[in-house]
Structures are given as C-alpha cells and as structure tokens.
C-alpha cells in the first residue's frame, strides 16, 4: 500500500509541464531512433545524452527513461517492415513480424507489436513498483563485501550473456575496469594512471567515451551497407487498415500477459536485459499452442517477444535503481547519466531521493502510454521514416557525435576521446568483441572498487570477509557457476554426442 502511495506521489512529481514535455520528447526521439535500422537504443541514448544537460536530474532521467522505453517500440518497426531489427531485442520480432508483413498484414503486425509491448510494459512496471523498494530493502543489508560480491556476479553474467565467446566477453569487461581506473582514485581522491597527461587527470569522460564506442564506431561500420536496397511495403499503411480484429487481439492477450511476467523476471535479474527476455519469451511460446506455426507470421510469436522485451526493460529498472546494477549497455548509459547528475543509484536511493526514484517509475507508466499513442500515430508515416537513406545518416550522425562529444566538456579533449574510442569500437567490432560489457564495467568499476577496498580495510586484508556472510557466499557461488557453465555445457554436449554415435 505504501508503494502505491509513493507511486501516486511520483505521478505528482511527473505531472509538471516540463516533465511531461521531456517525457514526450524522449518518447518521440526514442521511437524514431529505435525505428531507424543501424542506430539502436544504446547508440540512441548515448547520442541524446548531451541534450539532457539543460534539465534538472529528474527531468533528464525521465527523458532518458522514456527514450529507452519507446526505443523498444521503435525497434520492432524496421524488424517487421524491413526484416532489419532496429535493436537486438527486436531480432526475435523479425522472425514472425516480417513473414506477417509479407502476408499482406504489415499494419496488423505493427499493431500486435505495439499492443503487446504496452501490455508487457505495464506488467513490468507494476512489478517494478513492488520489487524495486523490496530489492532496495534487501540491498540495505549489504555491506561492502556483499556489494563487491554482487558486482562480481553481475559482471560475470553480463560478460557471458553478451558474447558467445567467454574470453572476449571477459577481455572487454576487464578493459572497462582499467579505463575507469584512469583519473582520480575513488577513495583517496589522488590522481592515478594519468601517465603525465593533464587531460587524463579527470579520467575518461563518460559521454564522449560512450558516444565514440557505440555511436561513432557504428557510423564507420555503416559505410559498407550504405547502398543496400531495402524493400519497403508498397501499399500505403493507414491506421484504420492496421486495426486488429477481435480474434487477433484474443490471440495476443494471453501470450502478452504470460511473456510480460516472464520478461519482468528476466529483467529484474542483475546482468540480464531485454534481449535475453525476448529470446526466452519466444522460446517459451514454442511450448504453448499457437494458431499458426511460429516463424510463419504468427501473432503469438510477435506478442511473445515484444511483451517480454518491454517487460524486461521496465523490470531492469529494479536492480538499476535499487542496487545500481544495469541489465544492459543502455542501462549502463542511464546509470552513467544518473551518476553524472550526482545521484547514486543503490539501496539508499529510495530513502534519500524518493521524489526522484518514484518520479522515474511513474514516468515509465506515462512513457508507456505516450509511446503507444505515438507508435500508433506514426504508422501512416513510418515508411517515410524508414526510407531515409543510410548514406545521409552517416554524415548526419558524425556531426551529432562531434557536437555531442564537445558539449560535455566544452573542450576538444572530449572530441578526441570520442574519435579514439570510435576507432577502438570499430576494431572491436571487427574482432567480434562485444562492446556493451565494457560500458557496464566502466560505469560499475568505481562502485565495485570502493566496496572491495573497504571490505579489505575492514578485514585487515583477509579474504575471509567474502565468505563470512551467506549472501556473499551465494553471490560468489553463482559467479563460480557462471564461470563454469560454458565448460559444463561443452562436456554435456560431448557426452550427448558420444552417446548418439554409440
């Protein structure tokens, strides 16, 4: 009950013309950025981060939250109409969305995605309203050792989830740690690892780093595909012609509700995110009855993954706000943004900044409604948005990268950092090394390091502090399982293969 009261007070915070305006702006920009193939929510949030400087922290994070959230809607547009997922969670949407569009029902496919996203999102938000503060209450019991163990567990799972190669995942995660070590020491405040460079004394600026790693590197990569022809629907899409029949709606509703719960559960787990939820939602649907086989344009297929990914996006705010652990690269950008505005996500956020925490949760509810309204309203114009040639997007995004990187530090140092990490990101992409774990560890490194060092100071250097509480033992046990999982999988596969051969 107390949570609902706090949520209502959160609505009070959001219902100002300014906050509603930024929520609307975030939702519109998120939808456009999400719909454009090749940009995605991570690069979108990174590129739009500088726009939030003008706002107070609450308005800024409301805008970013709305942007992230409506991105999930936008990602489905290009997946359904072009078979090009705008973002990784939309990969599964394309499996049934594109065949449904090919069957002459592109509008219905978009409607299915939009309504499922909305239902899944609401489920995620309602659960977030209760799990967020509960998780924070658990977090309040954490000491430095438990917090450090939790961070290790979250980072291990992230490295494993975001790449198919554990070695590459670990390399990129640990590199993020090293990069974050440049600048000021978190505990003593003394400069370290600046290698005599005065610019590095302040560390690597977060915004240029993110813009370069995910934005500029993507621009370089887009060069090859810039003349690729995309086949857009020939018939004009209208809102009336896209309406779902009662039968279609009845098909999507139970699937969206079921996937919404599943997606939220995945989202709340530290280290997982919308992409994992979409995959699991789709996989789970295979176990249930669908009117048409999955992969042939089934309403159930679109509903399963869209509801799951939006629910996970909402659910992932629980560990982000309550424990300071993001579930995805985009979550890391949001966390970085929060820290930039002086807020420290973690167990104390709900106690120390309730206006902010509840305002953000309330804004997600509003963003969900706004995103649905915009997503429906944009259907007649979506073909025009998707028709913007990639060859024009390359110089345009380059310009945004430059001005965005400059505006954070008002110095060319930011631009240089952006270009350097753009090249690093490009090389990592070529070497098939995932970039998102590096962003996550870059953001989490200061919190992890200060907790780890505090734990060692408390125990006077004894490692036993990490095994003195049940919680940290559980976290470390799960970490060990995550590390061993690929090897166990390999052994199981080999045993199975030798059995079938025999």
């Amino acid at each position, binding site marked *: 009950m107390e949570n609902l009261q706090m949520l209502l007070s959160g609505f009070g915070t959001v219902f100002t013309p300014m906050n509603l305006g930024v929520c609307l702006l975030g939702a519109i920009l998120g939808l456009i950025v999400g719909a454009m193939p090749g940009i995605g929510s991570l690069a979108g949030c990174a590129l739009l981060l*500088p*726009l939030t*400087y*003008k706002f107070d922290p609450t308005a800024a994070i409301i805008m970013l939250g709305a942007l992230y959230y409506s991105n999930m809607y936008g990602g489905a547009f290009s997946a359904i109409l072009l078979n090009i997922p705008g973002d990784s969670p939309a990969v599964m949407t394309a499996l049934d969305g594109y065949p449904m569009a090919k069957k002459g029902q592109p509008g219905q496919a978009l409607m299915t995605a939009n309504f499922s996203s909305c239902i899944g999102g609401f489920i995620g938000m309602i659960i977030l309203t209760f799990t967020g503060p509960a998780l924070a209450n658990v977090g309040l019991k954490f000491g430095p050792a438990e917090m450090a163990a939790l961070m290790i567990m979250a980072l291990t799972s992230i490295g494993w989830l975001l790449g198919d*190669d554990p*070695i*590459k995942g*670990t*390399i990129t995660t*640990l*590199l993020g*740690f*090293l990069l974050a*070590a440049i600048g000021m*020491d978190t505990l*003593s405040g*003394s400069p*370290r*690892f600046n*290698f005599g460079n005065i610019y590095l004394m302040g560390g690597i600026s977060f915004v240029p780093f993110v813009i370069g790693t995910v934005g*500029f590197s993507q*621009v*370089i*990569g887009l*060069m*090859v595909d*810039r003349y690729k022809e995309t086949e857009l629907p020939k018939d004009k899409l209208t809102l009336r012609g896209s309406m779902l029949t009662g039968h279609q709606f009845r098909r999507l509703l139970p699937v969206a509700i079921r996937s919404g719960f599943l997606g939220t559960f995945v989202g709340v787990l530290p280290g997982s995110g919308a992409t994992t939820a979409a995959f699991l939602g789709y996989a789970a649907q295979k176990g249930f009855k669908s009117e048409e086989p999955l992969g042939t344009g089934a309403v159930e297929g679109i509903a399963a993954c869209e509801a799951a990914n939006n629910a996970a996006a909402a659910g992932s705010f629980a560990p982000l706000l309550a424990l300071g652990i993001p579930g995805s690269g985009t979550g890391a950008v949001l966390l970085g943004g929060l820290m930039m505005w002086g807020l420290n996500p973690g167990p104390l956020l709900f106690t120390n900044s309730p206006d902010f925490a509840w305002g953000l949760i309330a804004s997600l509810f509003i963003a969900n409604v706004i995103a649905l309204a915009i997503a429906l309203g944009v259907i007649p114009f979506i073909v025009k948005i998707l028709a913007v040639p990639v*060859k*024009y997007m*390359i*110089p*345009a995004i*380059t*310009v*945004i990268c*430059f*001005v965005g990187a*400059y*505006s954070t530090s*008002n110095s*060319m140092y930011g*631009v*240089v950092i952006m*270009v350097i990490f*753009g*090249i690093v990101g*490009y*090389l*990592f992409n*070529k*070497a*098939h*090394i995932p970039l998102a774990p590096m962003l996550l560890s870059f953001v989490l490194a200061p919190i*992890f*390091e200060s907790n*780890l*060092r505090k734990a*060692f*100071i408390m125990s006077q*250097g004894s490692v036993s502090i990490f095994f003195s509480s049940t919680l940290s033992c559980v976290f470390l046990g799960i970490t060990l399982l995550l590390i061993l999982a690929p090897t166990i999988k390999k052994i199981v596969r080999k045993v199975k293969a030798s059995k079938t051969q025999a």
Partner: protein
Amino acid sequence: MSKFGVKQIVPLAIAAICVLFIYTGLTKFGFWDATSGPTPAFVPTIISVVLFVICVLGFITSFKDTKESKFYKEEFLVIGAAVLIIAATFLIGLLPSLAVFLVLWLKLVEKTPWKTTIIILLFLMALVIGVFVLWLGVPFPEGLIMDLIG
C-alpha cells in the same frame, strides 16, 4: 587456422596496456600499504594481471576463430574525415569544419545533388545551432583564423 590480423592485434595491444598499468601501479603506488591497506593501484593491478593472462589466452585461441574480419576502404574515409575535422577545428572552428565536412562528404563521397546537399546542410546546422548553441549555450571553438580576426 586464421591469419594474423585484428583478432590477434587487439588482445596483444590490450596485453601491452596491462603491462603499462602493472608497471605504473607497482612502481608509483605499490600494491598494499601496511597501515592503510589497499593502495590506489590495488584493484587496477589485480585486474591488469588477470586481463593480461586472458589476453594471452585470447591471442592463442584467436587463431582457431574462423569468423571473417574484413576491412573496407570506405570505412577509413570516416576515420580520415574525423581526423581532418579535428585538424580544421583549430583553424576555422568546430561548426564551420562540420559544415565544410557535410558539403564535401555529400558532394564528393555520395555525389548528392546540390539541392539535397543544401537541404541536409541547412537542416543539420539549424538543429545543431538551435539545440547546442542557442538552447544549451555551448561555446564552440572558433579557431585560429577567427581569433586573429576577432
């Protein structure tokens, strides 16, 4: 077995960075202080050692990686353009450099008609000036030439 390329260069380069961190950390800050416990280099040194080992592993296993890593000439055009924009900023400032880049890119690389080029230029410059200069009040650098004139 794949040839020597970016998949091998990346772990090697990161391993070299690890060596630099370990050396700087241990020589400048030490690892553990008898009175105050872990030094500022404590965590970075541990991370560097682990990362170094994993990079070596990554280097060895990279030869078994059969995924293709192809580089294209056009991709380097963007990097070259970025370097030129930075260089030109010191002369004519950031916003004029970006305007020149837009025109040159659209005309020379994409062979865009003048009409489209001007529309894109005006749209983007209006967006940048409107949002970043007028709204956010970002003081963009004006460059050596403007400084001399001003």
